């Protein structure tokens, strides 16, 4: 299994734990990730608010950089994933726009034919392509007893509805069940973490984060598993400030799903970026997983 790999800016620094755990997990599962040479930023949601055509062209450069020998590109970040997928779709559905994007790419000596690359989120690659059997066969340290709340957020499951159910996704739930964890079935798993709102207006953003943490708490969650650097940052790094604003005392670690997957596959914690989260996951994980 070989995929072009688009890590995205966050994975370089802020989401380094995602980066190392993705690569470690891929090695164990036999997924070959070939990092896109000289990839550029996907522009997040910000570039689209400024200039649509340029945003598309900037994103399309990455699609054009995928080597001709490969036809699948995977991204771990939800925003990067959606941007890449969206531009591929826009170019296919709106040939006018596609033509202009290619004209812009031509200025850099590049070209992209829509549909050439299939953009996949990492969760699809692991859940669907690697699949249940292969994963179960490689579990050496089941997550028995650990109550994991899978958090999907928005942009992996919406607006395109082909990755998972847009309202009530289940793929990460299934994955954690394969790993032996107790999956928390809570109602807000695809609700919004506030995205960039933490940077713009805290009261609104913190309220959205509070709703997620509140529901996770009510369902007795040990750890939240997420699949996007922005979600992780909002729920983890802002957790103490959310507590400050609402006079709450949340203390729920938020990890990348690949960190927990890595753990189950027997990758040492130090190779999975543990300890980089602000709300430390160590204690609850050691307590729960040592117990059995």
């Amino acid at each position: 299994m070989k995929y072009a790999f688009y890590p995205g800016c966050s994975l370089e620094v802020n989401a380094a734990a995602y980066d190392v755990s993705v690569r470690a997990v891929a090695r164990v599962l036999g997924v070959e990730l070939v990092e896109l040479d000289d990839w550029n930023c996907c522009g997040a949601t910000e570039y689209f608010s400024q200039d649509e055509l340029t945003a598309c062209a900037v994103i399309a450069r990455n699609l054009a950089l995928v080597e001709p020998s490969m036809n699948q590109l995977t991204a771990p970040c939800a925003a990067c994933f959606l941007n890449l997928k969206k531009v591929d779709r826009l170019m296919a559905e709106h040939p006018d726009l596609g033509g202009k994007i290619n004209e812009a790419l031509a200025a850099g000596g590049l070209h992209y034919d829509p549909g050439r690359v299939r953009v996949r989120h990492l969760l699809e690659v692991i859940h669907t392509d690697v699949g249940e059997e292969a994963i179960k066969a490689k579990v050496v340290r089941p997550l028995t007893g650990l109550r994991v709340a899978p958090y999907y957020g928005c942009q992996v499951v919406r607006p395109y509805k082909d990755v998972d159910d847009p309202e009530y996704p289940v793929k990460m739930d299934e994955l954690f069940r394969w790993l032996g964890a107790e999956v928390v079935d809570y109602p807000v798993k695809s609700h919004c973490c506030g995205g960039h709102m933490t940077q713009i207006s805290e009261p609104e953003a913190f309220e959205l984060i509070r709703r997620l943490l509140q529901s996770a708490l009510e369902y007795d969650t040990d750890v939240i598993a997420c699949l996007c650097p922005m979600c992780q940052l909002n729920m983890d790094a802002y957790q103490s400030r959310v507590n400050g604003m609402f006079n709450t005392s949340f203390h729920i670690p938020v990890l990348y799903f690949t960190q927990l997957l890595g753990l189950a596959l027997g990758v040492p914690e130090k190779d999975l970026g543990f300890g980089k989260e602000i709300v430390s996951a160590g204690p609850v994980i050691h307590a729960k997983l040592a117990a059995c």
Partner: protein
Amino acid sequence: MAERVGVYVCHCGSNIAGMVDCEAVARWAKENVSDVAVSRDYKFMCSSLGQAMIEEDIRKEGLTRVVVAACSPHLHEKTFRRACSNAGLNPYLMQMCNIREHVSWVAQERDPATEKAKSLISAAVARVKRQEPLEPMKVGVNPRTLVVGGGIAGLQATLELADAGYPVVLVERSPSIGGHMAQFDKTFPTLDCSACILTPKMSEAYQHENVTLYSYAELEEVSGSVGAFKVRIRKRARSVREDLCTGCGACIEKCPRKVVDNDFEVGLGYRKAIYMPFPQAVPKIPVIDRENCTWFQRGKCRVCEKMCQPGAIDYDQQDEIIELDVGNIILATGWKLFDCRKIPQYGYGRLANVFTNMEFERLCNAAGPTSGKIVLRDGKTEPRSVAIVHCVGSRDKNHNEHCSAVCCMAALKFGHLVLEKTGAEVYSFYIDMRTNQKMYEEFYCRLLEEGMHFIRGRVAEITDAARMPGEEGKLIIQCEDTLLGRQRRIPVDMVILMGALEPQADAKELGLKCGISCSMAGWYTERHPKLDPVATMTDGVFVAGACQGAKDIPAAVAQGAAAAARVMGMITKGTVEIEPVVASIDEEGCSGCRICNNMCPYNAIEYDAGRNVSRVITALCKGCGTCVAACPAGVITGSHFNNEQIGAEIEGILWDARAAAGRGAAAAV
């Protein structure tokens, strides 16, 4: 002798003339198309003046062929054929050419539209000259009618025909007739008891001397055509002999196997492995659900057999095939409920106290699983607040684009029942309140008066994730109150989803068997949406009730009666004329290869072993042309669609290309 063709170009008011220069087209035809003796344009060709004009030309100008360039032959082919007959011209020497649906309604610009009209007329003239006079075939109408579906629409049709003295065969898929109405408690807007008005009709139909009822049966195959259909019915094995069973119910009482009833009780109640869907079922004969019966699954039990005094239990019963001749068919197969799980944000199947509308009907029903008590899923707690969510799976391009037409009224009915029985607060979340039949708006006013709350906004989601005090342990309805322009969250104990009425899952398949088609949404297509709502494009096949589109009981009943009246008209007339457009085999050239025998979708070709030739059974042939194309010897001819006619039509349509090629050749010389 050259033919004398008359060409008539209709303006259709401005429908055609708005986009096509009709005058120029008519002039052009006269000057450029060979053998055109007369060519005229007129505001409305279908008017009596227009028809008279054609008739007069036939007589005075000695026309031998007529082309009418107007609307679709579906609409007016009969009209113009009649005009020709009146003037003594064989009606099959008239050809229609559709310059409305195929030209003016789909064109954007006038010049190309006008050119296209010319091409089509040129094609029609070329073809009509090669047409041959045909005589319509007369077929006697079998007075027996097949009605498929025993809901209120089918029952109405059945009774109208039977009361008028004609035999009816009623085929119902489920073990009892009655349809959805049998599940309801009260009916809007009068709130009369549904069973009280329905069951008399059910037993009347069953006992009627002119009605033969096959319940637990399905229509398998239809052949033939109007007046003389042959139908094959599969009567599924009930495992109970209808001739012996007295309907005492001893078997049901003693059957040890209890299963969730996902049909009549929509999952809220239980039934036995041997069961009747409901106490007033008609026929009052149980059926064994073989998937769940201990004897059929594990080879043990046979308790029902021991209990049955008359000895009616028959575990070896087989499906029975019944073949019948009927003159007409009425489809009244109704609707099915939208699967509310398809909208996960409404939580059906996940949040216990979210109910569907059909579940709620059973909850309300005195004969239902809770004896009519409105309670939560725990079976005992009465709700103190209830939310009714409109348009679930209706008016939604992700599911069904259509409005289900009855659910606003059903929501009001539910509101009234909740208020009356529990005094709970009731909220309706609607997009538009559709109460547009007799006494419906008045019913809406009544509920306003009774204190039901109305919030204009389609529900965004239903959640148990409490956000604010007062929300804990409740179902929270999140929506925008569009009249306030503000988001609202309303905590309630119970939610009712007004799921959409959808076409039956097998509607298309059944339609195909009878030769009728479905709309994009899946409802049966009527012959004309306004003027012919119960007939279909296939003569002798009628539709009635919700299978033609979501509708309420009064409308379904009206259609049932209307369909019956149409059938009676055919029966009274005694014979029908059927299109002489059929295939025929030239026996001289037929090698007896029999390829065509299996190709014919209507089984209309038989093989004569003695003479080693195939022969078309004219009464069954629909003129589809499959065999014509299939015959390796090329000896099958489709009248009215023979190769010569089609070839001429193609050449005619390409008149300008031909002219251009001619010029090109001339230039080269």
